[in-house]
């Protein structure tokens, strides 16, 4: 089951519009998705902090650490894992960049 691709790819935006060290909230299929470009690698997460569901895009991205603006919870954007506190994680989505330089997000 785990090997089966059950998600649907959505073209979201050109990679050119999301610079390294930047993040942006986009709406994909009715869901708010946070895109993060860390050193050229793009990651997609549910745009809600797992703590109290506040949007993450107002937060601060510093190297690979994303800090939620509300209660200053910190996450590693390369893994989605909580840094402080550590017993939580962002909800991640499939994400890739195609040959034309478009960011694609896969939603189940």
């Amino acid at each position, binding site marked *: 089951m785990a090997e089966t691709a059950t998600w649907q790819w959505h073209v979201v935006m050109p990679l050119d519009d999301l610079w390294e060290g930047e993040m942006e909230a986009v709406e994909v299929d009715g869901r708010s998705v946070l895109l993060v470009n860390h050193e050229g690698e793009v990651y997609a997460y549910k745009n809600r902090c797992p703590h109290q569901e506040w949007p993450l895009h*107002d937060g*601060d991205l510093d190297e690979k650490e994303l800090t939620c603006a*509300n209660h200053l919870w910190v996450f590693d954007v390369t893994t989605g894992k909580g840094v402080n506190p*550590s017993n939580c994680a962002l909800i991640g989505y499939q994400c890739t960049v195609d*040959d034309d330089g478009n960011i694609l997000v896969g939603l189940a």
Partner: protein
Amino acid sequence: MSRFVLVGGGVASAATATGLREAGFDGEIVIVAAEPHLPYERPPLSKEYLAGTFAVEDFRANPEDWYAQHDVELVLGTRVEALRPAERRVSLSDGRALGYDALVLATGVRARTLDGFAGERVHALRTLADSQRLGERLSAGRHLVILGAGFIGCEVAAVAAERGVRVTVFEPEPLPLGRVLGPEFGRAIVDIHREHGVAIRTGEVVTAMTETGAGLELTTRDGEIVACDELLVGVGSVPNVELAVEAGLAVERGILTDEYGRTSAPDVYAIGDVAERLHPEHGRRLRVEHHDTAVKHGGNLARTLLGHAEPFTGQHFFWSHQYDHNLQSLGQLTGEGETVIRGSVEDRSFAIFSLVGGRIAAMVALDRPRDVLQARKVMGVPHEVTAEQLADQDVALKSLLPRGAGARRSEVVR
């Protein structure tokens, strides 16, 4: 095998247990908590849980199944009755005695009570049960009186007003939170509450209470009688230090510890709200009742218990939500230094900085999350700023940081 006993059911205990297991500690961990609940976060008790937007599962410190999965024993609804440091042993209210290799006191604080103000319609707000009981009484049209316009009082006033309750707040000081946050903040908070229909009666004190068949009658210092249905006493807290005092530990305003959380007794530690802990950057002991600090104390102590002791030097941070407004604070606002206002007090989008020797010592912000995030980074490194720079909104706070690499475009490599 080592056994670590954590006393208290809040986030400080939970964060210690989490930190220990994440670092690979495979000894026994026992959490003893007086409340019958799994460890939970307290901030929602006067906000989302009281408003009915959060259920209990939404603010547990760890998921329900985490404790069993990580072999952490929970002894809930149980008090530690006695601590004997010389024997490395605690006695529990269920009759058990537990030996320990390390004991962590994270017993927190309780609500301060007022003589003459008790009864079926009188509330405090500190526990899940308190919040549940108060929430059940907040039906539209009833009259809630709150004694004390501190954070608990203000947050409950906001939730109650939004639920259609008539709210009156008595605050002996001329402005709510004025001593902590300064007059601009105090005035903004009064105005915000008044616009939502809350009567904030500053400079006034309720001196007596009587129960009538229909409700409560309060008497003010000026002799006025105020009738209400429910009363919340929000006049501060008392640290739960009794166990430590009886065990002979050094206690002043809280349980005294060094910068590592060590008390005066060997292998006994104190963290969270109850600890009066040496903070190396402040050069003195501080007792801080912030959720964020309690969590960080727990993580820090886990490292200390595993032999990687490092002083806790973190910035203090807290937040409050009232209506649609977001208040956040960094550092310790002590009133020292120069006060600088950034943003617009009239538009209720401003931050107040305390500037000491060219450094940001502390800040508090109303609806300025970006300023808080940026100030936090600046405050974490050596920096030098002027009052003019802080007051000038065209100067981004992050520009005060040492220059790093900026954003750049990514190459498509495929």
